[in-house]
């Protein structure tokens, strides 16, 4: 008795007569099964495994040959160039293009402030005795000379301005006040967060209230931006504060 039954896969329709034309290699097969065997009998499956054909996967691929395809270089370079143009080109162009700036602006006839790049006058230049408004994107910086013959210090001026600002805002909270010399001028400043009426945004703004004494002039500067937009302008505000000086 053999462990292997005859391979019948190629014997469809073979008659017993045809089977007599057997192949020697199939000597241990039944006569009816010897008909059209043309190759070696496949090995028996391992004991204990299921029967039936295995799924028809294709032949195993050969070992991959590492070879750069030259005709593929150009499209890849084009794609890389497009991505670089969008990302690096944008960053580079942004650095090259100078931001518009209001430049040196005189406030109230006695004080000047140099607007940082990107900061422009919110209203057309004209009478600046009531102060000026500079804007950049969603941020706003107002500068006002409240007195041209001020005898006090910046800290007391800040205290007065805090009260004034609180009276104009429904909700406002202040951080701790600081006093320093900025550009050689006595300066006091405080950060605040306020709720202001607004139709589309949350209505919360972050800001900084700055009071300076510049050659006897009391200068009040308020920088504000919608919450989340203040951090990007901090450096600009610091630069503009340092640029404050006495006018002609």
């Amino acid at each position: 008795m053999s462990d292997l039954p005859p391979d019948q896969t190629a014997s469809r329709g073979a008659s017993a007569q045809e089977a007599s034309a057997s192949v020697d290699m199939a000597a241990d097969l039944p006569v009816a099964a010897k008909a059209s065997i043309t190759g070696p009998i496949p090995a028996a499956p391992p004991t204990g495994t299921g029967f039936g054909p295995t799924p028809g996967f294709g032949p195993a691929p050969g070992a991959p040959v590492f070879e750069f395809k030259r005709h593929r270089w150009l499209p890849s370079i084009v794609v890389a160039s497009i991505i670089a143009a969008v990302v690096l080109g944008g960053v580079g162009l942004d650095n090259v293009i100078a931001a518009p700036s209001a430049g040196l602006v005189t406030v109230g006839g006695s004080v000047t402030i140099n607007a940082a790049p990107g900061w422009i006058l919110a209203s057309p230049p004209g009478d600046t005795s009531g102060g000026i408004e500079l804007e950049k994107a969603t941020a706003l910086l107002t500068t006002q000379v409240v007195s041209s013959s001020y005898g006090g210090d910046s800290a007391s001026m800040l205290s007065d301005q805090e009260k004034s600002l609180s009276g104009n805002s429904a909700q406002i909270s202040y951080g701790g006040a600081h006093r320093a010399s900025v550009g050689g001028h006595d300066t006091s400043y405080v950060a605040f967060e306020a709720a202001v009426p607004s139709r589309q945004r949350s209505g919360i703004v972050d800001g900084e209230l700055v009071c300076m004494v510049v050659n006897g002039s009391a200068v009040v500067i308020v920088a504000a931006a919608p919450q989340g937009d203040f951090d990007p302008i901090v450096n600009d505000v610091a630069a503009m504060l340092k640029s404050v000086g006495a006018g002609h």
Partner: protein
Amino acid sequence: MTASAEPGAERWGRQASLIQPQQPAFWLYCLLLAVGGWLFAQEQSLMSSLMTAWLLSWALVLAYAVPVSLVIYRLDLFEREPRLMLAAAVVWGGVVATSLAAHANEAWLSILSKVASPDFATQWGAAIVGPGVEETLKLMGVVILYLIVSSEFDGVMDGFVYGAMVGLGFTVVEDVSYFINAVAAVPGAVDQSGPVLDTFLIRVVGGGLYGHVLFTGLTGTGFAFFVTHRAGGMPKRLLGAGACIAAGVSAHVVWNSPWMESILQTSSGAGPSVFQWIEYGAVKGLPFLILLGVLVLFATRSEEANYRSIVAGELDPTVITDDEIRSLRSLWARRSARTATERLRGRAGSKLTGRLQAAQIEYAMIRSGTDSLADPALDAQRLKIRSIRAELVALPFLPRPMPKAGPAASDLRTIATAPPLSAAYPPAVAPAEATPPTLGPRAVWTPAQVEHLPAPASAFTAPGWAPTHVVPAGGMPAWDAPDPARRPVAHLSERVELVFMAQAGAWAQVRGVNGWTGWVDGRLLVPRGW
């Protein structure tokens, strides 16, 4: 035997790997993935400081993304794309495109505010910069995937699938950043869940259908049109591709623009309701979604035609019938076919029909990848299909309730025009209630091959009959003992169901439904369920 598919049919059967070190585009993908991945990790690390909001955000976007990805995957009815390629598309959108876009958007917005005005940039920057930067970066992902494995782009449908997957990845990561920003914008940020859920309702529930999946689905379709319609001539290719890409970019422009914001206004001054957001999204996005639906429909019809071309010339009519090809043309048609079978043969019949449909799709994949109708893989697939059919027709019919009154005229018309029940799935053996006492099957398509077993030991079906295997195509001889020196005692007809009882080497002892036992070549038996 050669030339299995009709000329002009696309090759479906050769799924390629994403890992193609010989392709420069593969290394470009890896390089940009490394850069994007580094930026992505930094961003996520920063966001995870709001841990509750961050985890909730990811849970919500994944709850949205998983079903959407399945829908996109299943819309590709015939030649489904390799999953690794699809994953690469999602990763490109979520990791590479979002990270690069964040930097590029900021730079181009700044440029816009310089060359125009800050006010203009604030109002229109999102509508001008966003689509330009983001659609370019996302589409480049589709192009890179094409450059890595161009053979996977067989038709317009493939462009839609890869584009939509890139868009899905992008929208997932972008949504997470929006959710976290909403939390960060609240003073104190004590409640991390509320702002996330509110933003989820607005961005996903209100406008989830009209986002980046739609935009990049359109642009990807355009790109695929260009690279797959080579026979159409350059002007036609440029026109078709340009129109689709323009539609995708336009959809993004309209979506980001401040147009129609009056819909969101409220008289009380409170924020817009979810219904207002849904209306706002529908007005701005629905026309483009309909356009994409029409394009996908045309692409599916094209794939159906290609499927017909591939399976044309099959000599065995039981592999797939014309009606079955029609039933494969849409998810709806496939479900209808399964439901129809379920009505006749129950839930098991529905499942078997689903397996039959999958096997028929797989048959086309194999057929497309071979030049020979005698390919062993093709034979194996034919066998699989026949086995499923055999199982299907062996299922008993469900009892049908008798109508209380006579049928309506419409019912009579349906009955009169319906094909016989056996037409859709020619039975390999008779239904259980009609099974003759012998094992003789009724292979209606090859009646000449029908042979009967010797007289059975018992004419009655054994209780608890649970066949494990079926006889393969062409039938097989059987012996009364596992001895090759003996002559076969019978020739079992194909698709006859058997119970495997014992094994001796490669011999298998089997039993028929009527109690007959014998020995066969176990290697040839087809397990039930194939």
